[in-house]
């Protein structure tokens, strides 16, 4: 069933288990989905319309509600019992999104607007040239790729990652790793408690780069000609560098600073009891990549739909 709706208020109750409806979106409208359970996948097209496909139980209604620039899509049963619905949406590129689900994954691809996506139990992934991204999960991974503007990524119990991003980045986990790669930002804040922090990307003049972990290591790839004032702080961890450090003056064994090049950027490296490592770009990434690939494989296995293309983006570095 494909319906063109000019007026954006419609409840499509269906005894079928599949809903497919397309409606015209007002320019600049923001799309919101507050899903109780179930996945949300969003892609884009060139049409100025929103297509909603949903798989759900029988007697579930998909409601589209438009009000003051916000298009709300939600699932409901006649009696208002929360229900599990998997949504697939195709939206205009420029649309902004606010998506939440309790247990389900969120996957957004190609959206150019502002994207907010959060799940409690599932993975959240936002890829494409979004103007800004907030991506978060409690139990699942959160990852962002390709965003143009401000990026906030967080997980509590799993990994948080961002790649090919250029705006200010704030990324954190508690019991997971935090991984940044191919970053072109001048404002980066990455932290975790019980996990590794890895960074590979630009170190910009006057930029600010702050990395911290309590238990895990900090691995930062610093380009050859980067200029930065670097501070290293640890309680019982260690420090190593793949290149010579230009020491000058007194230093404590666990808290010290040094200056690279013109000292233009500020880099803070802090781990309470983990190893702090400096590398050159490329040297550590293979290991990093391998680890990620292994993790990703393990994850795919766990999800039992291994499609075998884990390494397809190998060598995808700038």
């Amino acid at each position, binding site marked *: 069933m494909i319906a063109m709706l000019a007026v954006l208020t419609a409840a499509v109750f269906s005894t079928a288990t599949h809903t497919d409806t397309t409606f015209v979106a007002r320019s600049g409208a923001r799309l919101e989905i507050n899903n109780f359970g179930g996945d949300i996948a969003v892609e884009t097209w060139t049409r100025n319309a929103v297509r909603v496909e949903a798989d759900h139980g029988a*007697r579930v209604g998909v409601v589209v509600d438009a009000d003051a620039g916000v298009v709300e899509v939600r699932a409901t*049963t*006649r009696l208002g019992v929360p229900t599990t619905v998997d949504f697939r949406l195709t939206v205009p590129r420029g649309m902004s999104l606010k998506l939440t689900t309790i247990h389900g994954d969120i996957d957004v691809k190609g959206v150019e607007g502002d994207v907010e996506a959060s799940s409690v139990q599932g993975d959240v992934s936002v890829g494409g040239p979004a103007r800004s991204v907030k991506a978060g999960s409690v139990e699942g991974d959160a990852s962002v790729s390709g965003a143009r503007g401000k990026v906030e990524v967080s997980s509590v119990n799993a990994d948080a990652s961002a790649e090919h991003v250029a705006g200010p980045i704030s990324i954190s986990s508690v019991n997971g790793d935090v991984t940044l790669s191919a970053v072109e930002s001048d404002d980066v804040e990455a932290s975790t408690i019980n996990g590794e922090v890895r960074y590979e990307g630009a170190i910009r003049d006057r930029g600010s780069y702050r990395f911290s972990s309590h238990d895990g290591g900090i691995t930062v790839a610093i380009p050859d000609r980067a200029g930065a004032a670097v501070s290293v702080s640890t309680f019982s961890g260690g420090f190593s560098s793949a290149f010579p450090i230009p020491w000058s003056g007194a230093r404590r064994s666990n808290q010290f600073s040094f200056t690279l090049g013109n000292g233009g950027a500020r880099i803070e490296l802090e781990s309470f009891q983990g190893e702090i490592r400096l590398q050159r770009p490329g040297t550590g990434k293979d290991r990093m990549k391998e680890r990620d690939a292994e993790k990703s494989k393990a994850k795919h296995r766990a999800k039992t739909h291994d499609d075998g293309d884990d390494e397809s983006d190998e060598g995808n570095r700038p």
Partner: protein
Amino acid sequence: MAAAVSGVTMPSVDPDTVPAASDAIDVRLAAGGDARAYERIYRRHVPRIHGLARRMAGDDDAGDLTQMIFVRAWERLGSFRGDAAFGTWLYRLAINVILGRRAATRTERERRDHGEGVIEAIPARPARSEHRIDFDAAIGRLPPGARRVFVLHDIEGYKHEEIARMLRVTAGTSKAQLHRARMLMRAHLER
């Protein structure tokens, strides 16, 4: 609607299908927030509750209603005082939920207005046909008033006086509805 059922003696729960001892433990655990204990309670009671919902409200709404009933029961576990069998308490709550639901009544009325799914039109015992539905399914398609009385009286064993209180009708109406239901149900006796 909650008051409608108060003061009514509930039929006891079949001890074969509901081990009361397991209930007692699981209810206490669930009242403390243990969802797994509550799932065990759900598994033990869902056939009966779903059957009640299906027959009272029809197939379409039975799943939703069953979920509502178990969600409502979870919310109110704290008010279960243990002086009756848990199954009896749950059952009373289920009937309250089913009778109290407005939305479902509305859809029911809509369906009746469209003349769909109602077997009232069948005058007597029709000839065997491909479209005949089985006895149990046919209950869900009785006119709502007759259906409720039939389920509560002939399946669940309530007396007309009790049903009258629950449904806020007279005992005479309850009797008349029961007879009407039985007459209609004759068409669905398997032979």
